[in-house]
């Protein structure tokens, strides 16, 4: 039943108007940005695809070993990536990895400073936290819609929506990590006459590192899942394979791409967890 006794409040239309306004007046900016990022992405993807897959697979295995010092993880990386290659999904996997990497970097570049700010400044905290709640509860698909007028179809729009979707944990956990530093330690740093920056870099950030790493890990996982969804607006990669399989009703192809995503997710997650644990030790 419609509510007749009150005129409709134009919530949706207002937002649409704002988006239109932006895309009309700023689209030359966003499109230019889009071009730059897109050429960056293709540079990375083409660069990686230049090597034969087995070289990259060995390289990734070596990186996994080097970062985690776990034989099991290195072995899993090797076997998993070989399986992906065997399923003829190497190309899409590389472009998915590139998208995740870039989105995560951007999310960190924006998220860490915002996290630090909200930890140190109470008004910033009050302003940022509700926005994060909105960002996290809004269905991920919705972010895809404004991405198109701003950046057009393709990977940049995908990165835009991925960054928005995956950034909240980076902000939240950075903030939490800094706020968790015991008061007495902060008092100690103050009592020796530290400046705000000295306190941040010598005490608060080192103490918060394990928590921040956990946040980055979550950001990577969210980015991976969003990159898959973003296939709907033309991001290629493993998500694109799944999307194609849905449209053509090809369960075989769909599950293969799905398994490849799981493998990539597990490798990234385990490596990040190991790094997080190592950063927990005094150094």
């Amino acid at each position: 039943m419609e509510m007749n006794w009150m005129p409709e409040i134009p919530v949706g239309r207002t937002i649409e108007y704002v988006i239109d306004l932006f895309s009309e007046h700023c689209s030359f900016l966003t499109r230019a940005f889009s071009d730059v990022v897109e050429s960056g992405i293709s540079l990375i993807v083409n660069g990686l695809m230049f090597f034969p897959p087995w070289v990259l697979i060995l390289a990734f295995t070596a990186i996994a070993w080097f970062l985690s010092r776990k034989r099991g993880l290195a072995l899993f990386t090797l076997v998993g990536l070989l399986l992906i290659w065997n399923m003829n999904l190497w190309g899409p996997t590389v472009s998915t990895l590139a998208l995740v990497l870039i989105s995560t970097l951007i999310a960190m570049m924006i998220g860490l400073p915002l996290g630090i700010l909200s930890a140190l400044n109470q008004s910033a905290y009050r302003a940022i936290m509700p926005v994060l709640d909105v960002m996290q509860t809004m269905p991920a698909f919705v972010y895809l819609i404004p991405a198109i007028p701003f950046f057009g179809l393709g990977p940049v729009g995908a990165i835009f929506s991925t960054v928005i979707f995956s950034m909240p944990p980076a902000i939240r956990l950075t903030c939490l990590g800094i706020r968790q530093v015991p008061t007495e330690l902060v008092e100690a740093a103050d009592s020796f006459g530290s400046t705000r920056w000295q306190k941040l870099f010598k005490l608060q950030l080192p103490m918060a590192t394990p928590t921040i790493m956990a946040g980055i890990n979550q950001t990577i996982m969210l980015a991976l899942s969003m990159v898959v969804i973003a296939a709907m607006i033309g991001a290629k990669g493993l998500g694109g394979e799944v999307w194609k399989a849905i449209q053509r009703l090809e369960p075989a192809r769909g599950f293969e791409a799905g398994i490849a995503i799981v493998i990539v997710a597990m490798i990234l997650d385990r490596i990040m967890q190991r790094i997080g644990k190592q950063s927990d030790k005094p150094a």
Partner: protein
Amino acid sequence: MDHKIIVQNLYKIFGNHPRKGVKLLKQGYTKDQILEKTGLGVGIADVSFHVDEGEILVIMGLSGSGKSTLVRCLNRLIEPTDGKILLEGTDVTSLGREELRQLRQKRFGMVFQHFALFPRRSVIRNVEYGLEVQKVPPKERRDRAMKALEQVGLKGWEDSYPEQLSGGMQQRVGLARALALDPDIMLMDEAFSALDPLIRRDMQDELLKLQEKMHKTIIFISHDLDEALKLGDRIILMKDGRIVQEGTAESILTNPADDYVSKFVEDVDISKVVTAETIMKNPGEVASYAHDGPKAALWKMRQAGLSSIYVQHKGRLMGIVRAEDASAALKSGEKDLKNILATDIQKVSPETPAYELFPLLVESSPLAVVDSEEHLMGVIIKGTLLAALAEGVQTNGNELDAGDTGRQNN
């Protein structure tokens, strides 16, 4: 006489619109009334005192009495609501942010109850922290930090991490971290309260020893009267954010200002006030090293009903001879006490407090009390010590805590 620090009418009220709390306090409302009426918490209320150069001032009170808030106001870790803090004439409360940082860097060294060491820094880098903040060059920084570590007896531990050290050692690091800056004022916030009693006593002795050399101005927060009596040149007693009594240990002990103070005082451990001199017994017969042989020694023991006898030579205590050794020597025909004299006897000075006698008595009994010329003044055996303590005021145990509010777990 010029005082080092003068605190004038200092207030700290927690909550929104704290000035209102100051006004109410001046009108005579109590801490509880103000909390009920306005929701404001009174931290400290109208506190005035002074600290002299080179003295140890102990500020004591129960938890919630405002003592920790007070010490944090001195270097403005907590911003006072009203009042003045004069450090050699400069009003600390009026300093800008940069001047305050300078003051904290150069003048104040702070030691915390739970050590507050930086867990991700090695011991030496903890000690270097204050110098690092001041941008002292790395080489000089390391040298000064090493010197501070040596002062507290932690040489060789510089590359360990705080979690690898015991509590006592961690607090030595905390002390070294403050000393490395060579501040003239040390703020010690319940610095030894988290340590177990034996370690705490060691640290107190250590601090007194260091203070003999350093002559810093020390403001020491404590809730333990025994600690206050031991360390403090003067003591300030606080309750509900106000000063209840101020004075030397003796004046507080003998002349408590009110019920609150006398409650503190009646808990003083008698074993710390009683000394060896007051409980020792007359040594009675003593053997002479020059004149007595085993036979004479045995005879003297039998006369006095003892199983051993002290031996003196020209008024100096030489050692002790036991009855069984003397009778063995007598049988083998020895003429003097040289071979049967046990020289590894426990000697204590007459000023030794009773609590230090307990562990010694466990190791060996009797104890010889000797003066500075090694002349035997008296003996103490286990029975005499216990009898002396039993005669004294009833006590609640050896480690007395003034606190009744969950401080027992120290």
